[in-house]
C-alpha cells in the first residue's frame, strides 16, 4: 500500500472519528459523506473508492459507509 493511500485511509478514519457522536448512524454517515464530497479532490476520492472496492479493511465502519456513497463528477472538457 502506498504512503499516499495510507494517508487517505488515516484521514477518512479521522473524519469519521470526529463525526461519530452526531445522533444517529445515518446522520454521522451523512456528515462524513458530505465532508469528503465538499473537501476532497477528485483524485483522492477516486483512490479511496478504489481502495474500498478492492479491500477497505483498514477503514472504520463509518468511513466505509460514507465512502460507499461517494460519487465523483468527471473532469469536464474546457469550454
Amino acid at each position, binding site marked *: 500500500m502506498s504512503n499516499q493511500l495510507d494517508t487517505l485511509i488515516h484521514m477518512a478514519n*479521522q473524519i469519521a472519528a470526529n463525526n461519530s457522536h452526531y445522533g444517529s448512524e445515518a446522520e454521522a454517515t451523512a456528515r462524513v459523506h458530505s465532508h469528503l464530497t*465538499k473537501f476532497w479532490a477528485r483524485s483522492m476520492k477516486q483512490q479511496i473508492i478504489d481502495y474500498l472496492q478492492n479491500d477497505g479493511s483498514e477503514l472504520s465502519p463509518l468511513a466505509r459507509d460514507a465512502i460507499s456513497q461517494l460519487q465523483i463528477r468527471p473532469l469536464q472538457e474546457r469550454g
Partner: protein
Amino acid sequence: MLQYFDPNKDYGTPASLSEKLVTLEIDGVEVTVPEGTSVMRAAALADINIPKLCASDNLEAFGSCRLCAVQIENRRGLPASCTTPAEAGMKVWTQNEKLAKLRRNIMELYISDHPLDCLTCPANGNCELQDMAGAVGLREVRYGFDGENHLDAEKDHSNPYFSFDPSKCIVCSRCVRACEEVQGTFALTIDGRGFDSKVSPGQNQDFMDSECVSCGACVQACPTSTLMEKSVIDMGQPEHSVVTTCAYCGVGCAFKAEMKGDQVVRMVPYKGGDANHGHSCVKGRFAFGYATHKDRLQTPMIRDAITDPWREVSWEEAIAFAARRLTEVQGKYGRESIGGITSSRCTNEETYLVQKLVRAAFGNNNTDTCARVCHSPTGYGLKTTLGESAGTQTFDSVMQSDVIVVIGANPTDAHPVFGSLMRKRLRQGAELIVIDPRRIDLLKTPHLKDAQHLPLRPGTNVAIINALAHVIVTEGLEDKDFIANRCDDKAYQAWRTFIQEERHAPENVEAITGVPAEKVRRAARTYAQAPNGAIYYGLGVTEHSQGSSMVMGIANLAMATGNIGREGVGVNPLRGQNNVQGSCDMGSFPHELPGYQHVADDAARARFEDVWGVKLDDEPGLRIPNMFDSAIAGTFKALYVQGEDIAQSDPNTQHVEAALKSLECLIVQDIFLNETAKFAHVLLPGSTFLEKNGTFTNAERRINRVRKVMPPVAGKEDWEVTQDLANALGYPMNYGHPSEIMDEIARLTPTFTGVSYDRLDQLGSIQWPCNEQYPEGMPTMHVEDFPIGRGQFAITEYVATEERTNSRFPLLLTTGRILSQYNVGAQTRRTDNQVWHDEDVLEVHPSDAELRGIQDGDWLGVSSRSGQTVLRARISDRMLPGVVYTTFHHPGSGANVITTDSSDWATNCPEYKVTAVQVEKVSQPSEWQRQFQTFEKLQHQLLRGEKAESGAS
C-alpha cells in the same frame, strides 16, 4: 459641533466619548465639544493652537510643562488647558500679554539647559521645542548657559534603531507615559527628583538591557531629538510621506512611510489607522530594511535541474520558459498535475489573481494557501457554527470587554499592537483568563487586576472547552434568551445532551488536561457571568488534530453564553500573517471560489465562468499536503508558489523536500532565495509591500490599502508577473492597475460588492461585508442574525491526538513565535531584529533539564518520529514539566524537521503544537542540519551562476 478629525494633527489630549455636549467660547469663537474634552483639545478642534510640550493626544493630560496655560473668565491664575475640562459657558483666552510672558519664561528655563545645536540636530525642522521657542517668541535666555546643566549626559546608542541623548531631554515624561499608557510595558521611568530628574530605562540600564520592547512609542512621543531614529540621524528629515499598511502580522497597522525620494527614512505609525490608532511594534516600526537588502532577487532566473547553475534571463524569457514547462507537464501528466500556492504575505489582488490563474488557466482547482497551515480550522469551524469564516469584532471592541479569554495565543509577541490594547483594558480592570500550556507575558501585565491561568497539556484543548461548556450548562449559566432567539434548537438540544454528560465534568477531564477542576469551574463561571466576555484565540487552537473541533467548541461557548453580536464580546481569531483573512477571502482554498463560494455551487460557478470566460472545474482541488503526497506518488508534477516558503514553514521538512524534488517544474516568485526556491526551476523576483499597490485584510476583516512608495527592484509588481504568466499560457489577463482587480472581486464576491479603491480612500478602511446593505462595512458581525440564519451548535467530541508520549519520546514539543522575528524570518532575519533572536532555542523546564543534566546553552538533540535536529538549550519554567518549546524563524534550526504529518481532521492544518520528542545533550549538528548546510552552500553557489563544486550534490 466640531467633528473634523485630522490624523496628522495633535489635538493635545484624547477625545472624550461623552454624548453630552458643552458649548464654550475660546478667543471669541464658539466651540461645542463632548463633555470631558479638555480646553486644549476644544481649542485645537477650532484650529486655535495653544502652545504645548508635555501634551499629546495619545496620552492622558499631564500638566507638567505649563506652556499651555490659558486665562479663563472668573478663574484664578492661569490654569493648564490640557488638564482643564471644557465647561458650558466658559470663556477662554489663549493669547494675551500675561500668557505670552509666562510662556517665554518657561521656554527660557528649558533652553537654558538645552544644547544650542539646532542646525546640526537631527530633529531640525521637526522639533516641537524649536517650534514652541518660535511660537512664544523667545529672543533671549537671561539665565545664560553656564549654570549647572545636563549637556554632558551620556548618550545611549545600544538600541539598533534609535538613540537616546539625555542632554536634549526636557523631562516632559511623554516617553515614560507612552511606554505605560500606549505600549503597556512600563520599561521607562523618571529617576531622581527636581534638577536630577532624568528618563531612565529600567533601573538606570541601557535601553537594550531594560525591558524595552522597541515599539517606538517613546521615540514618537519625544518632542525633541532625545529619542531619535538612527535612520533620521543618518539620512535627515523626510520630505514626503505615503500612508500604507504594515506587511507583518494580522493586526494590519497603518503607517506613514516617510520618504526622501524613493528611500524610506522611517515608518511612523499612522494615527488615522483604524486598527492601530498610531501605535506600532518593533517589526512594523523599524524592521523594513529587508526591502533594500543585498539578498533581494533582482533578475528572473531559470534552470533545467536543481543542480544546475541559475541563468539570469529577461522577464519575457523566464515567463515563456515557465509557461512552456507548465504546458508540457500538463500535456504529459494531465490537467490536474499542476497547481499553485498563494501567500498570506501578498495582497488580496495578488492572491485573487493566482487562484484565478489556477482555476481559469491551469483548468483545475489545485490552489491552496499558507492559511492551510495556520487558520484553515478557523474557516471551517466558524463557517459551520456562525456561518462566516471570520472574526466577529473590531480590535477596539476589547475596550468594552469585562472578561478576556485568551486561548492558545500570545498577543504581546505575535500581535503586539493589539496586545498593548488588551493590556490597556486589563489595566482598567477587565479580568483575564489564559488557557495555554505556557505562561504567556500577558499574565505579567503590570497593574493586572485578576488573572486565571489554565495551563493545560498540549493536545487537550477540546477536552477543556467541553469541560467549560459542561459547567455553564449544568450550572444553569446559559443565556437562554439568546439561544432561543438566535440558535437552531435541534442542534442546540443535541449539543446540550452531549455536553451534559458527566464525562465532560471538569473533575473527570482533569486527568486528561492536567488542569485542576476547580480552576476550570471558576473560569467557566467568570466568563459566563461577565456582562461582556470575549474570546481571542490563535494558532494554539488551530494547529492541532482537533483544531476545527476546538474552533467550533469556542463558538459553542460564545453562543451558549450569548457573547455574540455586540461590542465587547465575540469570537476573535488572531491571524498570524498580515493577509491570512484576505488570502482566505480571495478563494485561495481548493474547494472555495472567492467569498467562500463552493466550487460545486452551480450558480456561483456560473457567475465566475461568465466573467472569466472559461469553464471551471466543479470538484475541489488538492490541498498543500495532498499536493506533496501526490508529488511523491508521481501524479503532481508542477507548482507555482507566490511569496510562500513551504520548505521552511510546513511540517515534516524531509517529506516536503522529497515532494519538491519530485517536481518537474517548480516556479517560485519571492523577494529572496528562500528555502523553497532552492528546489525551483524558475525564479521570479517578487516585490515588497513598499513596491506595490493593493490591499491587505486584517484579523478584524478590515480591508486596508497598500500603497506603492518605491519602484519594484526587478521592475514588476507581483500581480503583473501572474498576469504575464496567464497571458503566456494563453489565458488573457489585461489589468492596468490592482484597483481593476478589486473591481472584479467586488463584482463576484457578495461580501465585497461595495469595495473599491475610491471607497477605501474615502473611508480609510472597510470591514467586510461591504455591500448595499452595509455600505460602510460591518464592524461587529452577527448583531441581528447569522449568515446561516440560526447559530449551529456543533458536537465536539474529544478525540485524543495520536501524537502521544512514550518511553522513546517522553516529552511534548510545542512551537510558537517571538516578538522580534516574523514567521519564517525571511524578512526580519535581514534586519537588525536579529540582535534579539539570532537563533531558535529549545526552552526546557528546569525539572526536565535537571533529569537530563542539561545546562543553559547546551546543544540538544531533539528527536521525533519524523527526524532529528539540534538546538541550543534555554532553561525556562514558562511551560509545564514535560513540555518543551521552540520557534521556527531560522531555517537551519530545522524545527519542522521534527514536526510530523499529524493534522486537523477537517482541514489538514498541521499539528505543530504537539510533537512527542526526546531531548538529549549532543555535541554536533544533526544529519539533516549537515545536509542543509551543504545544500545551502551549493544553492548560493548556483545562484551566483557558478557550477557545483566536484562532490557537491
